[in-house]
């Protein structure tokens, strides 16, 4: 190739982080291009259609919801930074959610977007723990979770200084881990704080039309600011010379150059892009010094079942629950699943149970369940076995999850109300997002400052360590600000 296109900034991945970084950079006059391998934007929070039905991939609920007028939280910051009006996201609040533990969910803590509800639930169920719980919450409120240089500390150790009942401890960890932890059994305390605030001190909301409303808003801002976007055009290689990203080789063999590169592909995935094992013309390139910090691939993967119903789920007697985090065992185990799927714990989401207002409602009922799953036991199955495993586990997951909802009016009520089903597995996740190991929450080792051993290559998104949809957007914003805009580079 004799001519090559040069950008001020090339961004790998059109997910939440990549789009948010792109908006900032394009707004301030940088020549930016986002390269995305998939045909749909959104990354880990994308959408798809089957038989004319629209499905969201990852979005159960957008966390970090605060009402208008609450300032200084992640949602407010990102609206300001991206010049988005609150109304553009059209967020509707959850009705109520629960953490339900025990073989049939006997111990249950309800929470809403009003934190006092959760606090009074803890006081009711765990009266001996409430003082310690309040001290923990006070600590969380004042903790500087966005500091880029905080020292890592075990969240379990910190929580045990305040909460001494192991059941309450696990009930606090379960939702926080399921909505964002890339580490087994424990979390880094800063990560726990980010998620605790996002879920409990802030709250859940979603637009009626789901994640595509968020994505459409970001795409419109990015386009208006002059950003370029190339879909179905992944980056297959980052050419590194002398510790500097000198070019990007695209999937079609084209070569582009950029002064700065922001990768949202994940830390281990980006390291892989820097290695010289693939090149479209087949020529072997001298191995480059990739980012020196070797990041382990995440161990935690998930499966999710989606059931489309011909009525509102509440019409099955299931009540108003928006999200239910459940666990049936004495100890809550958040770890790589030893079975193909671990149905002991999981998350139920009923998207109909957001408060969309008196007139608006989703066109059909939806019932979604997420459980931990083993990537290794899904990825290499022959096609027939894969399909059979999906059918088997679909049934097992539904059965497990229903223990934590009110009983159905009749045994076959759910089957009779079902119009369609879908299910994704660890294999699906890797196929559509490029995340190694089906690890939605990425590598257990986060890179808070986004730096790599390559001087003009920065990480943003999940592996930078701000979690959730809002966290991912803030990550893109922070990395664009910190590495590119603030220095006036």
């Amino acid at each position: 190739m004799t001519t090559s296109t040069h950008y001020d900034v090339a961004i790998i991945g059109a997910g939440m982080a990549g789009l948010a970084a792109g908006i900032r950079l394009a707004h301030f006059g940088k020549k930016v291009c986002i390269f995305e391998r998939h045909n749909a934007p959104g990354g880990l929070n994308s959408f798809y259609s089957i038989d004319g039905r629209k499905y969201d991939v990852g979005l159960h609920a957008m966390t970090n919801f605060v009402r208008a007028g609450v300032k200084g939280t992640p949602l407010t910051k990102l609206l300001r930074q991206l010049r988005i009006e609150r109304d553009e996201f059209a967020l509707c609040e959850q009705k109520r959610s629960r953490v339900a533990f025990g073989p049939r969910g006997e111990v249950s803590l309800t929470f809403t977007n009003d934190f006092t509800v959760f606090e009074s639930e803890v006081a009711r169920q765990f009266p001996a723990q409430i003082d310690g719980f309040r001290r923990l919450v006070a600590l969380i409120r004042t903790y500087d979770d966005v500091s880029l240089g905080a020292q890592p500390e075990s969240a379990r150790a910190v929580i045990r200084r305040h909460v001494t009942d192991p059941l309450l401890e696990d009930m606090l960890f379960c939702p926080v881990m399921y909505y964002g932890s890339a580490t087994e059994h424990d979390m880094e305390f800063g990560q726990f704080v980010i998620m605790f605030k996002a879920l409990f001190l802030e709250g859940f909301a979603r637009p009626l039309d789901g994640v595509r409303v968020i994505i459409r808003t970001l795409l419109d801002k990015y386009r208006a600011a002059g950003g370029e976007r190339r879909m179905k055009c992944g980056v297959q290689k980052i050419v590194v010379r002398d510790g500097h990203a000198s070019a990007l080789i695209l999937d079609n063999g084209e070569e582009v150059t950029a002064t700065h590169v922001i990768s949202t592909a994940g830390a281990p995935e980006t390291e892989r892009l820097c290695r010289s094992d693939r090149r479209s013309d087949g020529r072997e390139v001298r191995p480059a010094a990739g980012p020196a910090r070797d990041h382990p691939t995440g161990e935690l993967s998930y499966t999710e079942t989606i059931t489309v119903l011909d009525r509102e789920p509440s019409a099955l007697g299931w009540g108003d629950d928006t999200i239910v985090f459940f666990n049936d065992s004495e100890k809550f185990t958040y770890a790589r699943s030893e079975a193909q799927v671990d149905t002991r714990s999981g998350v139920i989401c009923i998207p109909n149970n957001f408060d969309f207002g008196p007139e608006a409602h989703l066109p059909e009922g939806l019932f979604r369940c997420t459980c931990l799953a083993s990537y290794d036991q899904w990825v290499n199955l022959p096609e027939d076995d894969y399909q059979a495993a999906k059918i088997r586990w679909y049934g097992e997951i539904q059965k497990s999850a229903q223990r934590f909802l009110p009983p159905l009016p009749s045994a076959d009520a759910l089957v009779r109300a079902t119009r369609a089903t879908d299910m994704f597995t660890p294999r699906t996740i890797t196929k559509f997002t490029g995340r190694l190991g089906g690890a939605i929450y990425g590598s257990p080792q986060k890179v808070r400052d986004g730096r790599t051993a390559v001087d003009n290559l920065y990480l943003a998104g999940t592996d930078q360590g701000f979690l959730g949809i809002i966290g991912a957007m803030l990550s893109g914003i922070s990395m664009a600000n910190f590495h590119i805009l603030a220095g006036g580079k």
Partner: protein
Amino acid sequence: MTKDETKQVVLDIIADIAPDEDISNLKPDVRLRDQMQLDSMDFLDIVMELRKRHNIEVPEADYPQLASLDSCAEYLTPKFTALGK
């Protein structure tokens, strides 16, 4: 450009980057940070918008000069004048 006009330039920028703030009664001699919820990301945006809209460069060492509307006017007005504005 007069100092009052410079203040209006800064107010216009704040209105765009922080539309959720009420800027109608800001005291010119009190730190902006003490009257509104503005964090370091917002201050970076004031600097960036000055560059984008008015070609005014504010080096990082001078960020404290933007603390209040009065100090903004003192610091920025000569820069506007130097650009012939």
